[in-house]
Every structure is written in C-alpha cells, then in structure tokens.
C-alpha cells in the first residue's frame, strides 16, 4: 500500500468504533449476570457480596419453574408446527410450479416485517373467537405465526442452493417422489432444518408482546414472568432468570452459527444460508 500508516490508522479507528458499539449494545444485557450472583436482596451494581441464593430461588419458586417449563414446552411445540408448515411451504415456493409465487413468498414473510402489536391484536381477536385464549394450542398458534417465517426463509434458501438435479437423479434411479424426498432431499435439507428449528424455537422462547395479549389468565411464560417480576417484586431472582434466559438464547444462536460453519465445510461453499 502507498500509505501504510494511514491504512493502519483507519483500521485502528474501526476496531475502536466496533468495540464501543458492541459494548453499548451488550453491556446492559450482561449487567444482569453479576447482579444475579449477588448476596443482597436489592439490585445493586456491583454486588456487595456473592451467592447463589437467587438461582436457588429461581429453581424453587414455583412461578419461575412453571414459567420456564411452559416456555420450553410452547417453544418446542411451536418449532414442530412451524417446521411441519414451513418446510412444505418452502418446497412449494421453490420447487413448485404455481402461479403468484412471489406474492405467496411475500405473505409468508409478512409477520417478520408487520408491527408486532398488529399481529398481537389480530391474534387476540382470532383466538378469542375460537375460545383459545390462555390455552396451550392458542399460544402455539400465535407463536407459530412469528416462528414460521424463519423456517420458510431458511429452508427456501437451502433448497435454492441445492441442485434440483439431485431429486431428478434419484427418480431416474428408481425412487418414487416420496422416496426421493426421504432419501435425498430431506438429508440434504438437514442442516437447514436444524438452523430453522433453532431460530423458530428462539422466536417462540423470546416472544413477549403477542403472548401478553393471548395468555389470558393462564400460567405465565418465562418472558411474561420476568415482566411480572420487574413490576411486582424487584429482587435479583429476575436477574438470575434473565441470566438463564440469556444463556439459552445465546447457546441457540451459537448452535445456528456452528451449523452454518459445518454446512460450509461440508459443501465447500461460502454462501450464507440466511442471506442466500
């Protein structure tokens, strides 16, 4: 380079800028971690002493454990339903021979861009008419609305990157369409399906606003319980819950990255599933 010192300087500046941005975005989130290990019953930063009492509280107070179990169950069910609907939808959008594909694709992605409050109001209207407010099926339906677009996006991208000739080859070798799907398409979709499941799971696990509208008087989910905790009883249990919550979400995202890395290594391609 003609100006090595200039080059080095811009590089140093950009590193600093990125570090500052990261700090501002992430630091408040990680503020809760030390607080959760506090020995005091007040939320003070930094904590005066350390203990595991708030984790103990989290794991023994029934509201928290029930909320966590409810969240895990609803997220799991939502993931299954979103996959069952989203994978065939992506197959139809990419491989299908139907009119108005672009419009359909747009409709499937609408929940990603529509204001969440609108979806929440609509879901409330729909589910109260069906009498499903405050029920597990009702919550799963509501969560599927926001989880399915992730499945459609990821699976569509995976299918688009996949050579359609693989399926034709399977059929030319004697596989009927079902066998071709089971033996060839599905295994090739597997990394995409894992990424889609993790994203769908996290979309449901993190979902708050829509849940607030449709949960009625039933058991809280973890985000709802956190909200209640902040409103009604401010002690570090919410910090412990938040830390656990944060850990689950981060691990899930880490899983997504690991899958993408594995996929790239397997196929030797540098394409990104989510941007493809």
């Amino acid at each position, binding site marked *: 380079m003609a100006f090595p010192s200039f080059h080095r300087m811009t590089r140093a500046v950009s590193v600093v800028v990125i570090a500052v941005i990261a700090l501002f975005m992430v630091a408040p989130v990680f503020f809760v971690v030390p607080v959760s290990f506090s020995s005091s019953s007040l939320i003070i930063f930094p904590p005066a002493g350390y203990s595991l009492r708030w984790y103990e509280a989290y794991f023994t107070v029934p509201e928290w454990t029930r909320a966590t179990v409810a969240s895990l169950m609803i997220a799991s069910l939502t993931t299954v339903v979103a996959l069952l609907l989203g994978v065939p939808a992506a197959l139809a959008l990419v491989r299908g021979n139907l009119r108005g594909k672009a419009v359909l694709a747009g409709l499937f992605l609408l929940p990603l861009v529509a204001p969440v409050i609108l979806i929440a109001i609509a879901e409330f209207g729909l589910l109260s008419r069906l009498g499903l407010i405050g029920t597990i099926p009702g919550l799963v339906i509501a969560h599927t609305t926001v989880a399915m677009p992730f499945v459609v996006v990821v699976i569509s991208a995976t299918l688009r990157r996949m*050579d359609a*000739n*693989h399926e*034709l*080859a*399977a*059929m*030319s*070798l*004697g*596989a*009927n*369409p079902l*066998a*071709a799907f089971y*033996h*060839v398409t599905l*295994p*090739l979709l597997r990394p995409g399906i894992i990424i889609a499941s993790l994203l769908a799971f996290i979309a449901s696990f993190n979902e708050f606003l829509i849940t607030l509208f449709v949960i009625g008087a039933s058991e809280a989910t973890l985000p709802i319980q956190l909200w209640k905790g902040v409103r009604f009883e401010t002690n570090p249990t919410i910090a412990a819950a938040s830390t656990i919550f944060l850990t689950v979400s981060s691990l899930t995202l880490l899983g997504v990255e690991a899958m993408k890395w594995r996929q790239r290594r*397997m*196929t*030797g391609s540098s394409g990104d599933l989510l941007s493809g």
Partner: protein
Amino acid sequence: MNTISTGEIRMSGITCRFGDVVAVDDVSLDVAPGEFISLLGPSGSGKTTTLMIIAGFQQPDSGDVLLDGQSIISLPSYQRGFGMVFQNYALFPHMTVGDNVRFPLRMRGVSSPESRDAVGQALEMVQLSGYLDRYPHQLSGGQQQRVALARALVFRPSVLLMDEPLGALDKKLREEMQLEIKRIQKELNITTISVTHDQAETLVMSDKVAVMRDGRIEQIDTPLDLYERPASRFVADFIGESNILAINPDDQGRFRTEDGIHLPGTENLAASSSGWVVVRPEKIHLNAEATGQPSIPAVVEEVIYGGDVDRYRVRLGKSSTIIAKQQRHAGNAPLQPGASVHVHWSDHDCAFLRQ
C-alpha cells in the same frame, strides 16, 4: 420394469411448448438396440428438452415415446428404468461413493450380498474399485463422472441417457473419458442417447448424430456422412470447419461464384438452381505449379502455424477466401504469404447444397 428390454427407442411426432416457445417441434427419432446416438445442437435447439421427455421428466404436448414398441409416455421417470448421467453428475453429497452406486439397487429392493457384488463390478468397470468409502467432494471431476456412470449402469438399464456428460471436464480429461465411455457402452451394448453441444465429442463417440436446430432435427446420420455430406448449410457450418461458397448457374449452365470463378467439382452437377459448395479445409490441395487438373489460380494471404498442420488463408477472387489445411510432411517447404498457388479439390470431396 421389463428386464429383458432390448432398449429400442422410438420417438414419434414429439412436440413440446413452453408458453409461446416451441422447444421441440414434431421430432421423430428411432434408436436401434445398442446404438449410441448424440443429440447435437446449439443452446436452445431443444436437445435437452428432448432428452428430458425420453427420461420422463417432461411431458410433451403431443407425440409418443416407445420402448420395444410399447408406449412409455405415461410412465413416470422412476418406472422407466433408464440410467441417466447428469450434467454436473448430481452425485448425492451426503452418501459415500458406495452408497451412491448402491442407491438404484436399494430402490429396487435388491438384497445386500447381491447389491454388494453389483456395486463392486460397476466400480471396477469405471476403474474406481478402492473408492467405496469416499465422499463425492473428495473426488476429482473425472472421478465423479465415473461414479455417476457406475451409478447409472449398476442396475443394468436397457437405455443410458446422458446430459452434457463431459461438459464440466477439461479438454484432456474429456478426450480420455470419451474413449472410456465409448468402450463401456460397447462392452455393455447399451442403447445410449447423449446430449451435447460439443461436435468433436459426438464425432468420436456416436454411431449416429442428430443435429438439432430450433426444436427440429436438421439431419440424422453417421458422423462420417454428417461430416462428408452435410444436408444443409447449418449442418455444414456446425460440424467441423467448412468453406462454404455461394454458387449460381451461368448462361451455359456452368456454376460460378459471385466473382465469376468456376469451381472444380461442379461440372457434373445436374442442378439448375443456386446453392453452396461445401469443401472441408483438409480436402483442398494447394500446388505451386498447375498439374493439369482443373484448378483455380489463387494467392496465399496468411499462413497460420498449428504444429502438425499449417492452415492457409487463400484468396480466390475479389471477395472469396477459403481456408486450406496442409499436413507438414518431411521435405515439403511451407508456402509463404503472397505466393501464387493453384487450388483444386476432387469432385467427391465437395458437397453441393441447394438453397
């Protein structure tokens, strides 16, 4: 599927449209058992669509495909029992070489000891015996091509279909695989229909070549006849290198080019219409002195050195130039640019095409 099929394919009156575009236009084609036919043409000529119709991946708008005299047009691809090699091989990336080759046997419910033998034989045939446990991405392009071939042949199909089988290989490997595929095809005596845009490839591999253009078969012949006796200007131009000279009959019925040159080999033409004379560059003799045979005086314009062969651009009249190829023999000095030469060719080395 009928396992004692002879592999005789008959296509009759196949037409296939995509919207307003007629991709295949009333194509009829007979392929004898054990014959190797290439569908050759530029992109958009309908050759791939024709192959997809035979494979069962594309339904034609009209026409029929017969195997051993029986219509298979309503059979889905997976019941036709044809082996197929795809352009980029379409090997299953999540399966080993062994599992790829075993796949068609698995789909047919062949027992495992039997399929193990068949897979072993198929891989031996393509000289990849030790590669059972490799994954496709660990193989070179040529090796992947061989696996695709083994997979398409392991279940002893009566017909082998190939879509640009060598398109992804470099020139040297392509020439090697041409001979390899030809050897295997003859050994198994399997009816083969191959799609390609590479005319050199078809001349080496095929028993017959169907040249396609705009959804129609322009000419179907042996490689030799196609090369020596092209039926149309398009074929003459598409297959190999050609000198194509427009000629018209004069008042005495003698054929002359636009600048009035009488060409050798046109004396006995009975035709009275205009057309073209086609002469291959290697059939043209250039002599420094007149030999007594009918010849045209000409001037060497350019000499292009090509190793074993020299190519000369020779000017005949005001507007016509032709390309002549001459082998470099021991002791014959190459002609120099500007040299006067006498050009001649034999009657049977030129073809006349009516307009």
